[in-house]
């Protein structure tokens, strides 16, 4: 079974969609958290792929290798990119389960999604509060804040701080056991998105992949 990167709707995606019954669209965390979780999410995607699940894991604008940098980013750019991606997936005709992580959950209520699954969702105000704690004032300007080592539009930060987590209809949520917030399941693991260096947690990747597959089955889309 192949597992490779290709371009889909202008965004890089893991590809093995040809013979699969349903597709998991992975929405990664935003900003630096995406880098810290990427290796574990790639492991999770590979496990899903090996279990005959189609996987698409795009870099959102401003993240990873997407050509739009964080400095040019606003919420409408992220939403337009996701619409382009979901339109492309809709033509495929197979059900799509959206699996979103951290602040990626802010954008996970997509038209055509058969079900949603979340891991450690983070509302916009918390994301922005953490980002602003890293601001380097001497590198910032009236229009952009230099946070987490990159320049980010203040308009985007202000808009994101007001974004609540949406409430999709068929939703399952997982959180770490150390997180006090409500969830369908709490799991024992370290918060990779807080680590100073990108890490890899194969046990967590396997657990998440299995939970996603079980949720797809529960929802009747696998």
């Amino acid at each position, binding site marked *: 079974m192949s597992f490779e990167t290709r371009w889909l709707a202008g965004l890089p995606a893991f590809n093995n969609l040809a013979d699969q019954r349903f597709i998991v669209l992975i929405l990664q965390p935003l900003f630096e958290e995406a880098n810290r979780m990427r290796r574990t999410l790639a492991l999770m995607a590979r496990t899903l792929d090996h279990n005959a699940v189609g996987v698409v894991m795009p870099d959102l604008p401003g993240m990873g290798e997407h050509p739009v940098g964080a400095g040019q980013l606003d919420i409408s750019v992220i939403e337009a990119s996701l619409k382009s991606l979901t339109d492309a997936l809709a033509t495929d005709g197979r059900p799509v389960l959206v699996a979103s992580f951290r602040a990626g959950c802010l954008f996970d209520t997509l038209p055509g999604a058969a079900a949603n699954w979340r891991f450690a969702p983070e509302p916009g105000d*918390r994301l922005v*509060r*953490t*980002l602003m*704690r*890293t601001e380097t004032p001497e590198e910032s300007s009236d229009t952009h804040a230099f946070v*987490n*080592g990159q320049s980010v539009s203040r308009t985007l930060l202000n808009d994101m701080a007001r974004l609540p987590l949406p409430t999709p209809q068929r939703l399952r949520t997982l959180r770490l056991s*150390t*997180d*006090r*917030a409500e969830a369908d399941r709490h799991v024992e693991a*370290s*918060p990779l998105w*807080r*680590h*100073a*260096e990108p*890490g890899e947690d194969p046990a967590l990747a396997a657990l998440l992949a299995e939970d996603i597959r079980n949720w797809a089955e529960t929802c009747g889309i696998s």
Partner: protein
Amino acid sequence: MQPDRTSLSEEIRSLLSDVLGIAQDRAATFEDSTELFGSLPELDSMAVANLLAELEDRLGFIIEADEVDGDMLGTFGGLVDFVDGKLSR
């Protein structure tokens, strides 16, 4: 119910280990007088932001910008005192 200081110290050692990526047996040696910010190379400004966010997630309070100072992050005991004070409010 608010945890006693021993339990709270254990929880903060575990949190420091998770956020800073330091071994648990090393974190277990932290005492009240152990110096943190400025002495612990893993604890740079980015790590401080993540440490504060993780404290908020795990312990259910919000830390305002004017609450973060040298006393709070200077030593392990100072950090435990700060969290203890937040939980007792």
